[in-house]
C-alpha cells in the first residue's frame, strides 16, 4: 500500500482529480486535476510510468478565449489512448466542454477540441464526465462518451455526446434528463456488450432520485426514449451541503457513480451504482446493483461506518479482469472532523463489502485556511490497475504542505 503526494512540489492548489490507467501496461497512469500552480485555474496533468511511484506534472494548454478550466476527467482506451474532458469558462460566463486526446500514453496531446461551446451566462455547460468503451464484448469499442450538465440559474439538464474518433470530433448532443430538473454531474459507464449507461441524480425540484437511460447501439439512441421517463434506480435523499459538522463549510454534491462488470467472471454484465445519501440521518454511501440496468436492487450501505459519521464523494471502479468492485470515498469516521479516504471492496459481486483505509494520515478539510473552506472539489476518483488492484486519487491537505494537493494511493 503506497500513498504519494503527486503535487506537493507545486504552488497553488490542486484538487478534483481523475485517474485512468493503461489496461495493457499498468505502469502507465494519467491523472488530471484542477491546478492553479501557474496562477490561473487550469487543467493539471500528471503522469506516472512506474505504476504511481513517481509523477511528472504539467498543465494542458488552455484554448484561446477562455480564462480558466476545471472539473477535468480522464479515461483510457486501447492501445495507448487517453482522453480528457474539461469545463472551460470565463468567470460565470461561457461554460464550455472541451476534450484533449493523447495517442501515446499521455506523452503528447492533440490540440484541444471544443465539444460544446457555451455563451455568456445563458448557455453554461459544466461538469463533464468521460467514459470510453474498452469492453472485449463490445462492437463499439473505442467509442467515447461525455456527459455534461448545461446549467441555468434555476434548472439544468444532463446531456451526452459521443465521439467515434476518440475525441478528435464529437457528434451533436442527446438530452438524457428532465430539461428543468436540478442536476450536477452525470455518471457514464460502458457495459459488457457496449451498452452505454447514462445515469444521473435529479435532486430537485421534487422527488430526488437516481435515474438512467441505456444505449444498446453505441450511443445512437437511448432507451427509454426521451418522451418516456428514465429508468428508475432508487429514490435519493441528497446529502446536506455543507455537512452538519462544526467548521465544515465545503459543499457536497449528491452525484451518481456507475460501474459495469466487463470481466468474464460470474457477475459479468452487472451494473452498479453508488451515491452519498442522507436517508439514515447522516450521509452514507449507498449501493444498488442490476443484472441489466433495468431492474435495480434496493440500496444498501457499504461503508460499515458508524451512524453519525459523514461519508461522501463515492467513486466506483470494477476490475475488467476479476469483477472486483471498489468504491472509494471521503469519511470522517476516524476523527469525527478530520477526513480520510476509505475503500469499500467486494469480491463477490456486491454481496458483501469490506472497508479499509487508504490514507495514512487524516487531514483537515480546511487545510491552511484560517476560515472553513467552501470548496474541496466535488469529486475524487478510483480506477482499476490490471488485473485487480486499486488506483485512487484524491485531494488532501496533509502537512507539511497543508495546501490542496492531489494524492495517489492504493
Amino acid at each position, binding site marked *: 500500500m503506497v500513498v504519494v503526494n503527486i503535487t506537493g512540489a507545486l504552488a497553488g492548489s490542486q484538487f478534483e482529480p481523475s485517474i485512468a490507467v493503461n489496461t495493457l501496461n499498468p505502469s502507465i497512469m494519467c491523472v488530471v486535476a484542477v491546478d492553479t500552480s501557474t496562477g490561473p485555474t487550469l487543467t493539471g496533468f500528471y503522469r506516472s510510468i512506474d505504476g504511481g511511484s513517481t509523477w511528472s506534472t504539467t498543465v494542458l494548454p488552455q484554448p484561446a478565449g477562455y480564462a480558466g478550466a476545471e472539473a477535468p476527467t480522464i479515461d483510457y482506451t486501447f492501445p495507448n489512448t487517453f482522453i480528457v474532458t474539461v469545463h472551460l469558462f470565463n468567470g460565470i460566463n461561457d461554460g464550455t466542454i472541451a476534450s484533449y486526446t493523447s495517442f501515446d500514453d499521455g506523452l503528447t496531446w492533440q490540440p484541444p477540441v471544443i465539444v460544446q461551446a457555451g455563451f455568456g451566462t445563458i448557455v453554461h455547460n459544466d461538469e463533464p464526465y468521460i467514459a470510453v468503451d474498452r469492453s472485449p464484448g463490445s462492437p463499439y469499442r473505442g467509442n467515447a462518451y461525455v456527459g455534461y450538465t448545461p446549467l441555468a440559474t434555476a434548472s439544468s439538464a444532463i446531456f451526452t455526446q459521443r465521439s467515434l474518433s476518440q475525441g478528435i470530433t464529437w457528434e451533436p448532443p442527446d438530452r438524457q434528463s428532465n430539461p428543468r430538473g436540478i442536476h450536477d454531474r452525470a455518471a457514464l459507464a460502458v457495459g459488457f456488450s457496449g451498452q452505454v449507461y447514462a445515469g444521473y441524480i435529479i435532486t430537485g425540484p421534487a422527488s430526488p432520485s437516481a435515474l438512467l437511460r441505456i444505449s444498446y447501439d453505441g450511443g445512437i439512441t437511448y432507451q427509454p426514449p426521451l418522451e418516456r421517463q428514465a*429508468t428508475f434506480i432508487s429514490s435519493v435523499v441528497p446529502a446536506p451541503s455543507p455537512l452538519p459538522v462544526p467548521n465544515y463549510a465545503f459543499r457536497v454534491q449528491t452525484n451518481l457513480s456507475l460501474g459495469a462488470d466487463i470481466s468474464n467472471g460470474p457477475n459479468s454484465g452487472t451494473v452498479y451504482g453508488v451515491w452519498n445519501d442522507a436517508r439514515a440521518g447522516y450521509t452514507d454511501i449507498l449501493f444498488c446493483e442490476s443484472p*441489466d440496468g433495468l*431492474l435495480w436492487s434496493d440500496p444498501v450501505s457499504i461503508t460499515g461506518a458508524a451512524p453519525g459519521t459523514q461519508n461522501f464523494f463515492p467513486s466506483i471502479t470494477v476490475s475488467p479482469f476479476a469483477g472486483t468492485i471498489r468504491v472509494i470515498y471521503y469519511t470522517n469516521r476516524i476523527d469525527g472532523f478530520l477526513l480520510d479516504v476509505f475503500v469499500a471492496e467486494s469480491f463477490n459481486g456486491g454481496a458483501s463489502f469490506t472497508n479499509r483505509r487508504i490514507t495514512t494520515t487524516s487531514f483537515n478539510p480546511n487545510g491552511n485556511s484560517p476560515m472553513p473552506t467552501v470548496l474541496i472539489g466535488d469529486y475524487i476518483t478510483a480506477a482499476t490497475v490490471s488485473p485487480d488492484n486499486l488506483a485512487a486519487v484524491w485531494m488532501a491537505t496533509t502537512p507539511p504542505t497543508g495546501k490542496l494537493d492531489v494524492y495517489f494511493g492504493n
Partner: protein
Amino acid sequence: MPNSTGFIYNPTSGETQSTQLIVTCINDSLNAPANVELEVFRWDTTQAARIPIGHDLFELLPQATRSLIYPLINAAFYEVQSDYFSATSTVIHVYGVNSTGQIIQRVLQSEMTLIDRFTNIP
C-alpha cells in the same frame, strides 16, 4: 418499461364477478433467465384508494412457466402491472376468473399498454 392492463372494471356481484386473478408467465427464451416483476392493485367502488394486493419478483428460467393467483376481495376495479428484465421472449397474460373458474376477463400482453414506471409501493 412495464405493461399495464389499465383500470379494469369488475362487477361486485353476480356470475360475471371475478374473484381471483391468474397471471401466467412463460419464458420462451432458450438460454436467458428472465426476472419478472408484478404489481397488482385493487380499488373498491369509491375508487378512493389504490390498494396493493400483490408485489412479486422472481426469476423464470429458460423455457419455464409460472402462474400466480391473487384473490380479488372488495375489488370493484383492478390493475396488473408487469415487466420482465434481463431477457426477451417472455409473455405475461392476466385472467380474471369467477368463483366457478370461468374466465370473465382476459388481458393478453399484446393488449396491454406500456407505462413509464411501476407504481411505487412503499
